[in-house]
């Protein structure tokens, strides 16, 4: 099946009445969840997973694509309106978004964000359409050593690139991997770390971990700010962009989308890095860099285009290799697996209809986000007025339903609470949670491919070094976390030297 035929089949599903309805629901719910400070795409996708049980996978995919894009856009809206970014991806949007809102141009800022998201998203999906099949053709020949090395690279890259200390991120990843070892070992049948509990034999469901570590842990910030009054910015102003505005933002969106996509494809580097890099580079390129930070329209277009392009780029390794490179794509992988879709090189070969269905639903989700959100902007700002206490209780209830709906066991609910507490403590002591989630999802696969590789080589570790691709990947992944550590050491000696002078 070639590219266009594949996409056409995908669009057929998407343009049915049912398809459009579910994208609409997805975009709306995603936007609402994304707007709640602290809750981002990870929570939005995890909360929606139980709803897709028993649904037609093609329709469920559309729903998820809508949720995914909606959540990203929701994060941008709360950045602009409240100066409260929903996720780290939306932080760079506050730099110029909030000043614009204060000048009474919130409508214009939100329209710019919507257009830039759309452009970034669309450009990256076009790249994805052509790059993913090529890459999966290459990846078909990959064996266990290559896979192990690739996943190792993904983990170390995410750890070294996430905010804060690399050691903390690596500790998070190690703990995530440890949690993944709970349950029956698939090769020998040994029950590991179950402490005699029958509930743990099948291991821990990723949804329990994702909802606890992200959604439930973030509820605590809603509790802490429960009394904070939400600033009433009633006037959002006109949504219209002038011709000059378009002239300003079109080149910005173009180059930052390409940059964002490339960053997104790299394992570990995601929307956060892309959006910051886009903001900084756009400021440097500008003839008038002082305008940035004071409500410059390009300061919104750049991070939003890059951020959305990066999320499209992150789908390249997910769809073609079956390896997520970030917390968000890790949850997306979980969502796809719940639907019975196993991303990877064989997906394209064995189920081209599903493969193209995923990509087509991304096109549709992206287009509908623009079509639906532009006219809804004046109303979206009202969602932020839902009282925090009520919001808090509702988020908790949705976490319960999400977990109980898959396992029908109250044991998992206690586990959810436990992970919620863990996630909260991690935030308190500045340990990033994304490496934990990614390591948990990759852990099982990594262990399996590691042991398969060693089975092939009869127990000799040399297989990882005689295999050229695996060897190069392992060297890069070691370098990716050694370099930042060396840098901080060097910086410290430099600082000490200057202090001596």
């Amino acid at each position: 099946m070639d590219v266009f035929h594949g996409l056409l089949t995908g669009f057929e599903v998407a343009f049915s009445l049912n398809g459009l309805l579910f994208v609409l629901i997805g975009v709306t719910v995603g936007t609402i969840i994304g707007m709640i400070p602290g809750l981002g795409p990870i929570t939005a996708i995890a909360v929606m997973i139980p709803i897709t049980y028993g649904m037609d996978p093609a329709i469920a995919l559309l729903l998820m694509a809508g949720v995914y894009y909606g959540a990203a856009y929701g994060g941008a809206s709360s950045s602009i309106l409240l100066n409260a970014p929903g996720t780290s991806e939306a932080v760079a949007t506050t730099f110029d978004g909030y000043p614009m809102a204060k000048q009474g141009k919130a409508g214009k800022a939100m329209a710019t964000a919507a257009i830039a998201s759309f452009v970034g998203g669309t450009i990256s999906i076009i790249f994805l359409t052509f790059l993913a099949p090529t890459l999966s053709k290459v990846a078909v020949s990959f064996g266990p050593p290559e896979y192990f090395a690739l996943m190792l690279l993904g983990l170390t890259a995410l750890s070294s690139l996430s905010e804060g200390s690399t050691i903390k991120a690596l500790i998070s990843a190690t703990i995530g991997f440890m949690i993944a070892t709970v349950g029956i070992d698939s090769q020998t049948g040994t029950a590991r770390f179950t402490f005699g509990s029958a509930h743990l034999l099948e291991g821990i469901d990723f949804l329990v971990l994702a909802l606890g570590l992200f959604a439930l842990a973030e509820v605590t910030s809603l509790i802490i700010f429960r009394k904070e009054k939400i600033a009433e910015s009633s006037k959002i102003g006109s949504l219209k962009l002038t011709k000059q505005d378009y002239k300003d933002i079109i080149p910005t969106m173009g180059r930052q989308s390409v940059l964002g996509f490339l960053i997104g494809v790299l394992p570990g580097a995601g929307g956060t890095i892309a959006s910051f890099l886009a903001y900084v580079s756009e400021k440097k390129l500008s003839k008038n860099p002082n305008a940035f930070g004071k409500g410059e329209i390009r300061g919104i277009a750049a991070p939003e285009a890059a951020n959305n392009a990066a999320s499209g780029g992150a789908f390249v390794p997910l769809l073609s290799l079956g390896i997520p490179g970030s917390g968000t794509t890790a949850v997306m992988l979980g969502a796809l697996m719940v639907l019975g879709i196993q991303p990877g090189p064989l997906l394209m070969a064995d189920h081209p209809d599903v493969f193209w269905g995923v990509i087509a639903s991304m096109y549709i989700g992206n287009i509908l986000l623009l079509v639906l959100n532009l006219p809804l902007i004046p109303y979206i700002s009202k969602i932020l007025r839902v009282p925090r206490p009520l919001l808090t209780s509702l988020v908790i209830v949705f976490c319960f339903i999400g977990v109980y709906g898959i396992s029908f066991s109250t044991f998992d609910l206690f586990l959810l609470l436990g992970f919620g507490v863990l996630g909260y403590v991690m935030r308190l002591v500045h340990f990033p949670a994304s490496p934990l989630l990614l390591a948990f999802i990759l852990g099982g696969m990594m262990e399996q491919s590691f042991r398969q590789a060693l089975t092939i080589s009869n127990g000799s570790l040399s297989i990882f070094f005689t295999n050229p691709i695996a060897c190069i990947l392992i060297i890069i992944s070691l370098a990716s976390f050694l370099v930042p550590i060396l840098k901080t050491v060097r910086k410290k000696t430099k600082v000490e030297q200057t202090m001596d002078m």
Partner: protein
Amino acid sequence: MLNTTNKKMAVVLLVISIIYLIVSFRLPSYAYVPVDSDMVPIALGVLLFFLSIALYFIKDEKSEEKVKLPKEDLLAILIVIGFIVTYIFLLEIIGFILITALFIFFCSWFLGFKKFITNLIVSIVLPFAIYYMFIALQIQLPQGILPF
């Protein structure tokens, strides 16, 4: 000695890695595979052991400052956890609709939601809506003591 959060966390993690290692070493062995089920856990335990030692010695400005949490907020979080535990215990006994309605109402009220009528309407309508939506999706949530 344990004056920073990092150092305290490092000690906790070190203890976790040792416990994890002990359990890993006690895993039963299985003779017919080149790599047994305890190999990866042992590697992970050793990794965490060394990382926690590294954490003890690194300096990191962000967490040098002591973590502060007002007592009032901590109490609120603990009470919400109490609500959650009650919910989990009663879910399969009194049923999804009833316990969810009670949870939404009391939790919102406790956190300072003053609009009594709105709260009442949301906490009654929403559980019913969710319950019947899941029935439509062919998922039966606990019915409990309510006859419908």
